[in-house]
């Protein structure tokens, strides 16, 4: 997978280079034609006073300067690596990595490539869970900072000012050691409220759904139910727009989902069961439920708390940027506080907030690399571990950078897509 990724990136870069060179040639050709035309009408300026010519020369000079700088750096790098005989091939990806990751089926005999992939998915796991939580918390806090309730407003301000002004690394170590490590009991004295959960300072376990026979078929049924529910919601919305009759689309949607789900459950002879986690006396062997490592929980908590403060500032600023007349108009319509935010202010504020929010998503994904310190096996810690196991560091760091680049590009692409939707809806 990683080699394919490297190749895709290399091809993409070469294609872009070709495109840029093409643009430059095209522009130069345009300038030549322009000058021919100018000459034919007798208005030919000397080349050093022709902005088109100057622009092309400036671009060329810039490209050459940058190229030379990179060529020099590359040569310097090669001189050093040759002098000490560093191997720059990517063959090491097929060597056994000799490492294991907590709660991951990776064995010491698995290859370096597989270890990197496992670390990459651990990073994805942080991002997918953390970003939505940060957005929800950030929005709530951002609204709370503008609340008319004095206590709520001050609490929100205090929280934002506290976490926003501490480096994320310190927040992570604080949450990890100050909260999770010391507040939760040792594994042997696990805290098991209601016998539904297991909490200790190494792992948390929660109830989950466990698949039995026909589970694969049941998943298809659920997918079908979700599609049906979305269609029903869409249909109710259309009815509402056409006739103005009460839509009750949430009720209709949930009803459809539950209806199909329950029918499917009984038709397939009970394909799932509710699974409660249990742990043995020593706090080591877990049965049932779904487990989460403490460092993961600490990292996600810390990053969400940290990023949410930045998001809340963006949300607050965006709300304040909505024209005052909009608020007054909604008050004149006697909308409730919730309705005012839900239907008038937030839709307009989100349009303003979204571009800077994308930046915060990128920051979140990059800050996840700090998990290295508290012992969660995400991509940076796996790469640094491998580099310490006699695997070549330059190639590993290159791969690490490319993987973060991929994450960032995908996040921005998704963000830009949503942003474009928001802009069109708002006109």
């Amino acid at each position, binding site marked *: 997978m990683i080699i394919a990724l490297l190749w895709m990136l290399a091809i993409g870069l070469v294609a872009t280079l070709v495109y840029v060179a093409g643009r430059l040639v095209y522009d130069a050709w345009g300038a030549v034609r322009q000058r021919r035309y100018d000459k034919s009408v007798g208005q030919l300026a000397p080349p050093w006073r022709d902005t088109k010519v100057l622009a092309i020369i400036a671009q060329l000079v810039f490209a050459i300067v940058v190229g030379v700088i990179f060529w020099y750096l*590359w040569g310097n790098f090669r001189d050093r690596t040759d002098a000490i005989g560093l191997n720059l*091939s990517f063959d090491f990806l097929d060597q056994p990595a000799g490492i294991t990751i907590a709660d991951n089926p990776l064995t010491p005999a698995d290859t370096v490539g597989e270890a990197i992939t496992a670390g990459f998915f651990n990073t994805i796991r942080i991002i997918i869970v953390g970003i939505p939580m940060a957005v929800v918390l950030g929005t709530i806090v951002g609204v709370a900072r503008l609340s008319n309730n004095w206590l709520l407003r001050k609490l929100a301000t205090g929280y934002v000012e506290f976490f926003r002004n501490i480096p994320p690394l310190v927040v992570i170590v604080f949450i990890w050691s100050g909260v999770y490590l010391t507040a939760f009991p040792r594994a042997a004295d696990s805290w098991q409220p209601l016998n539904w959960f297991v909490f200790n300072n190494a792992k948390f376990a929660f109830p989950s759904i466990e698949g039995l026979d026909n589970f694969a078929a049941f998943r298809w049924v659920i997918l079908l139910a979700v599609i049906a529910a979305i269609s029903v919601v869409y249909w109710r919305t259309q009815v509402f727009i056409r006739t103005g009759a009460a839509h009750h689309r949430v009720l209709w949607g949930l009803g459809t989902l539950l209806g199909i789900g329950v029918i499917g459950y009984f038709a397939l002879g009970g394909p799932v069961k509710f699974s409660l986690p249990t742990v043995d006396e*020593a706090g080591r062997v877990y049965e049932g439920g779904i487990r989460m490592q403490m460092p993961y929980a600490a990292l996600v908590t810390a990053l969400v708390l940290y990023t949410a403060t930045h998001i809340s500032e963006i949300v607050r600023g965006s709300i304040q940027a909505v024209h005052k007349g909009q608020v007054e108009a909604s008050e004149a319509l006697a909308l409730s506080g919730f309705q005012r935010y839900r239907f008038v202010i937030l839709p307009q504020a989100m349009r303003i907030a979204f571009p800077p929010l994308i930046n915060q998503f990128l920051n979140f994904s990059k800050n996840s690399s700090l998990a290295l310190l508290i012992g969660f*096996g995400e991509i940076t810690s796996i790469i640094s571990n491998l580099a*310490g196991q006699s695997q070549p560091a330059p190639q590993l760091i290159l791969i690490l950078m490319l993987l973060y680049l991929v994450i960032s590009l995908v996040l921005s692409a998704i963000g830009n897509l949503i942003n474009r939707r928001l802009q069109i809806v708002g006109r």
Partner: protein
Amino acid sequence: MTRKVTITGWQRAAGVVAILALAASACSGDDDSTATDSTTAPDSTTAPEGTTADTVEVTQGGGVLAAVQSRDVVNCGGNNGLAGFGSVDAATGEAAGFDIDFCRALAAAVLGDATKVDIKPLEAAERFPTLQSGEIDVLIRNTTWTASRDGGEQATFLHTNFYDGQGFMVAADSGIASLEDMANATICVQTGTTTLTNLNAVFADQGIPFTPLEFASNDELNPAFQAGQCEVWTSDASQLASFAAGMDLETTILPNIISKEPLGPAVADGDSQWAQIVDWTTMATIQAWEWGITSENVDTFLTSEDSSILTFLGQPVKDADGNEAVKDLGLGLDADAFYRVIKQVGNYEEIFERNLTPIGLTLAGSPNDLWTNGGLMYNPPFR
């Protein structure tokens, strides 16, 4: 008719990507040549003349010894978080420890002054890249000598200064007494170490499942162990003793030793003169111990009857015809380099007792004892 030339955001982005592409295309192109180089490398007789000449020039012209002498300080990669081996002395604020003393010995040998060292504290995973980059002249940071590090990390390991083995530490009340008792336990280990690969290999071979928890730094591992997140801490036995000494928690270090961990100095490949200097400086402390020369009594040996000792200390030796001459060992060091090492830093026993006895390690009867006492400390003769 005019047309405006505007640079849009898209074009600007494309420009940035183009620069990256330039680097990447150069990268892929040169990778091929590296591959061919490495395949022809074993057949050294047919290796291109140019590359061989280049390498020789680098070693002779850009020698580390000359660089150290002109800089007048030895850059030494060390540890600052391992009491006994390498840490910051709370009283003086200076780096102190067993490994640090070997850096000082090197400075005494090369520059004549044991204080002319610059200790760069390194985490385990960053030590080899730092050595490869030339940022440090020598790495003396409780680093295990292994084949893959000698080969894959472009490092040259030199005479072992501490024979260690991987052990396990548990809280005294944990009830863990053997490897089998650790089934499914959370075992903490530092990333980028041989300890981690040993742990995985041994537990996989014996079929014992466990939950690994890997920390980049012992600074975070230590509180995690004391809070009980880690039921077991595995590392070199000497390190465990060092950390146990600084803990309020009652701990037990199990008798099981699962690996050989010879710790020693390492230098970057490609400069054999510098490697020899580091090697013989390390061994000089052992040789002095064998002869009973200490920093206290070294001056009394300057008039020794033993010609080997005189050569070692850089004193003139009478030959059969009665002519006196100082024998040059040809290492590129001053004649009295080893005298300065012993005078300023001390012999191996003194270094050990100064740094490691306080954290509870004993020298007598351990693998680090002299070969004449049944230990492993043995070195070739200084002739």
